């Protein structure tokens, strides 16, 4: 398992695209928003937490199809399925690798991009915390979507259609934590709910992803 994680991380570093593309996309989305809604700082301050969450979510979505597709195309998944690793473990490690290469950089970049959106001073910490708690759920749910659409020709678009509705609860609670944090309100309740969704998804969804992958491999 550790070997699989180490290999995925090494591949992400070598191939370059892993970290860079998602981050660049996040940056561009954040930069485009003021062009769309106008440069008024008070407005930007108000929408900053939500925009950061949407940007992170879309950047995450962009890289989902790479989680399993590459290993599927070169036959690695077939070989991994015959290796002494449980399929649930394989999909969990794949999701973890995706989080480390895509989710974590987004979490760390969000406060920096918050400056561009004139995020309220109290918001930086909670944007960081909410993304740190919420993005693992995005990776795990995304892995499920990637497993469902593996090997389909028009998989990319279908993947978005399947995954985006599943992202709704995570987005709502995550953005709520960030927004309340920025406005100096109590954040404990949404944070607990966000954590619940994140841990629940991490604990249960790998079973669904593994079942789906076994069906797709046969």
């Amino acid at each position, binding site marked *: 398992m550790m070997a*699989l994680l180490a290999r995925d991380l090494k*591949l992400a570093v070598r191939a370059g695209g892993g970290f860079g593309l998602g981050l660049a996309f996040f940056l561009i989305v954040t930069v485009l928003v003021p062009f769309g809604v106008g440069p008024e700082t008070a407005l930007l301050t108000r929408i900053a937490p939500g925009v950061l969450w949407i940007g992170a979510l879309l950047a995450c979505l962009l890289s989902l199809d790479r989680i399993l597709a590459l290993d599927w195309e070169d036959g690695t998944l077939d070989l991994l399925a*015959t*290796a002494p690793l449980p399929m649930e473990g394989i999909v969990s490690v794949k999701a973890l690798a995706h989080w480390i290469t895509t989710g974590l950089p987004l979490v760390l970049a969000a406060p920096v991009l918050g400056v561009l959106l004139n995020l309220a001073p109290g918001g930086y910490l909670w944007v960081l915390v909410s993304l740190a708690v919420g993005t693992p759920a995005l990776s795990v749910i995304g892995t499920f979507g990637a497993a469902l659409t593996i090997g389909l020709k028009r998989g990319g678009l279908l993947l978005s259609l399947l995954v985006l509705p599943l992202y709704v609860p995570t987005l709502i609670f995550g953005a709520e934590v960030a927004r309340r944090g920025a406005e100096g309100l109590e954040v404990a309740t949404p944070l607990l709910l966000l954590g619940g969704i994140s841990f629940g998804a991490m604990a249960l969804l790998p079973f669904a992803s593994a079942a789906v992958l076994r069906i797709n491999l046969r």
Partner: protein
Amino acid sequence: MVLRVSNLEISRGGRAVLEGVSFALAPGAALILRGPNGVGKTTLLRTVAGLQEAEAGEITGAGESMAYAGHSDGLKSMLTVAENLQFWAAVFGRSEIEAALAAFDLRELAGRLAGSLSAGQKRRLGLARLMVTGRAIWVLDEPTVSLDAASVGLFAAAVRGHLAQGGSALMATHIDLGLEEAAVLDLSAFRARPRAAQGDEAFL
């Protein structure tokens, strides 16, 4: 560990292709599957490897002692030859890769990225992967594709060495490896009689 297949029935795309397939593969033995294209060699091997479920029949002795190599080698072009092997060794809980590199004449290529190898070299690396798994039963699907005569010789020697150590090999191949000790099983004899596909039966 004896690999035993009894009265196996398998299907491809929901359609029965082979039935009544039975054989046993003892340690030190090799079995070569033959038959025209489409007879079900790949499907049989994937079923033995556990990637696909059999429609009927039983397979015992595979599972934890089996290493599978299919049409694709599962190599990462951005990793070096040595790193690719180290990864697969680690997946199977091992670390030794020197013997495999030597057996397939990959020592000099060890530091090269797998993406820069020729097709034949990649195949050799894919086969070297079998040695690092430490598994006793090799299940090989067309292992000699894109190998030149010398490389086929290397492969045959590796298989012979594996058999000598008490391993066994089940493979589908058309070319003559010069493995006199290998038994040959022609799958044409087990072709399934035409019938409805498994999933379709309920609708006919």
